[in-house]
């Protein structure tokens, strides 16, 4: 008999399967209709869902709220853009973003993990603000204008290649990429390492008595989250062909937090569903009224008050019950 965590993880996997199937149908319809915009919007939604995933790793599994995850998202985006403008290679861009995220993530993690709770939120907020300001003023990074002219690339697998300009192709590629990030995160959190993180979240003072180190796992989680944010960010310039300092601004971090909370904290899959929901919502509401912040803000407040466990708090238990009934019968 599986324990509660494994059970809820299984329910999450069912939701992933639903997401993948829905995305495939979406892509098929998009191709049939010759659509570009919705496929690209979907791709962007998935990219920002990747950022939300990294926020959820921190918030859901270590209980630490990062208000500055855009720092790593922007880092990945800028490194990727700079690499692509020199050599249009997907793997070089991803390698660069990964390396940069590990280095900066370790430094940032050492600073931020000195503190807990609200202090962590404020220190991550501050770090991202300072980084955004530096980028905004840096001429070599295009300063406030950002960098345009990131070329269209081919993601080369040796046996096949996908062009970042192909709406459906790049959508499916991004889907696969984000799902792999999700799977890696889900796997890691189901290992003893992940359980240790959850134990730390529950009671940090007791964990050392069980013979575990508390500093390294936290730092590990922080760096993993940084890498996931940066790799998601690295896809952005491939899709849109540019980067701008706004990618590091607080609104980007804030949106990721809104996404995770609405989707369901600590579920990982909630971040993906939330990301898609928020991007679509913003796009639709934005076309009707310029006061979309009122609407988004109110929906978010409603989610915090009435859905403390997010959308997944409603959906996942239902699936868990379904699964349980099946195993019994």
């Amino acid at each position, binding site marked *: 008999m599986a324990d509660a965590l494994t059970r809820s993880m299984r329910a999450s996997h069912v939701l992933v399967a639903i997401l993948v199937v829905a995305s495939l149908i979406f892509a098929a319809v998009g191709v049939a209709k010759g*659509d*570009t*915009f*919705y496929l*690209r*919007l979907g791709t*962007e939604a998935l990219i920002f869902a990747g950022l939300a995933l990294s926020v959820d790793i921190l918030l859901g599994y270590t209980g630490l709220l990062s208000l500055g995850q855009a720092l790593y998202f922007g880092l990945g985006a800028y490194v990727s853009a700079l690499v692509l403008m020199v050599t249009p290679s997907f793997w070089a861009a991803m390698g660069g973003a990964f390396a940069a995220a590990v280095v900066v993530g370790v430094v940032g993690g050492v600073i931020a993990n000195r503190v807990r709770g609200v202090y962590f939120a404020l220190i991550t907020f501050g770090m991202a603000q300072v980084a955004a*300001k530096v980028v*905004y*003023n840096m*001429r070599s990074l*295009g*300063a*406030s*204008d*950002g960098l*345009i*002219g990131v070329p*269209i690339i081919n993601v080369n697998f040796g046996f096949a290649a996908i062009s970042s*300009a192909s709406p459906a192709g790049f959508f499916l590629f991004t889907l696969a990429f984000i799902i792999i990030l999700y799977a890696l995160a889900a796997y890691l959190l189901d290992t003893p390492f992940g359980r240790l993180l959850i134990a730390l979240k529950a009671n940090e003072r007791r964990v050392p008595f069980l013979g575990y180190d508390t500093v390294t796992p936290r730092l590990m989680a922080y760096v993993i989250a940084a890498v996931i944010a940066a790799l998601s960010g690295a896809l952005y310039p491939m899709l*849109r*062909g*540019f980067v*701008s*300092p*706004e*990618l590091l*601004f607080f*609104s980007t971090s804030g949106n990721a937090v809104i996404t995770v909370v609405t989707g369901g904290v600590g579920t990982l899959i909630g971040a993906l569903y939330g990301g898609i929901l928020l991007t679509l919502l913003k*796009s639709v509401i*934005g*076309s009707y009224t*310029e*006061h*979309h*912040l009122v609407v988004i803000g109110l929906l978010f407040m409603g989610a915090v008050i009435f859905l403390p466990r997010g959308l997944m708090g409603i959906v996942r238990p239902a699936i868990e019950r379904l699964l349980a009934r099946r195993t019994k019968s």
Partner: protein
Amino acid sequence: MTYKTTMMAALLAATALSGAQAADPIKIGVVTPLSGTYAGIGQQVRWGLELATKEVNAAGGIAGRQVELIFEDEEANPAVAVQKADKLFQVNKVDFLTGTVNSGSTLAVGQVAERAGKLIATTVSFADSITTDKCSPNVFRVNARAGQQSAALAVWLSKDKPKANVFYLGPDYEMGRSTVAAFKSAAEKVGATSSGEVFAPLDSKDYTQYFGQLRSARAQVLYTSVAGNDTVRLLTQMQEFGLLTNLTVVGASGTVTAQNLPAIGKAAEGFVTGVGYSAQIDTPENKKFVAAFQAANKMDPDLYGADSYGLIYAYKAAVEKAGSTDTDKVRKALEDLKWQTPQGEKTLRAGDHQAIQTMYVVRVTGGKFMTVGQVSGDDAIGPDACPRF
């Protein structure tokens, strides 16, 4: 009701003129900041475009087709602007796009247009790079760029304050540094001396910390390129510290505008700038435009409103000349196009897609932008520095 009836009348007139196929409207997408820091500018862009569209439609539309504007809020964020531009091009199938304000958005949306094979025009961004080193065959600019503004202002400076001692205060980002550098070289060419420069972070709360430097420089003229609410703070704080009495403040055209002038109040008196438009330009065309704009929006047009208004007429002229809305044909028609705007005739230079126009020097007097000089378009424009076409 009245709006609808005029629309109907126009529609009928159009059908009568050019037959049944006229029912299909020409769609122009507008990606402009309707929320966030630049919402005030987006408002002027919207009003200018709406007024011109109403007039064009009432007079039978463009080549007999009605014009439809589709607005999207870009939140002054290039990442949002790009997504919205994509939507307008792909879903709404707009024929033309305009409205971007900050240069980051203009450049990024220009790239989207290039990849989608469409044309855009900016009526606001004045970073020189848009029509120089980062120019694009699909991007046009109908407003005056920073270089034109500095050139006009420098001519005035040499006449009114010969050999002045100038101090520079710019916002510390790309636009601020390039406007200061451009004006500095223009001013030094006409004999001004520079006594110091300082760059303040964007959204500075308190400019008083730079006043010591400003005082000790003993400058006669302060050049600044801060904008929006930053200008409100800079000028009112200077007034508070009694710095405005012996100092002439000059600046970029976006420094003092219709949006922040009421808030600055008396502290803006005497401010001089080089600009492509002023509501006080004394021509019948402009008076008619200002009256119509006032009637519709209860506010004077500023340079953004006027340049946006003029764009619709440029597009109309180009489409009618090209005989279609096809990108290549319209691009060709826009190149070297001459057309009438409230501020006089403008020419779109084929070499870099930059509008050439008479530049005005205006001084704030009694809360209005009074023209105190003008410089011909050819003297202000500077060389074509676009490497791509």
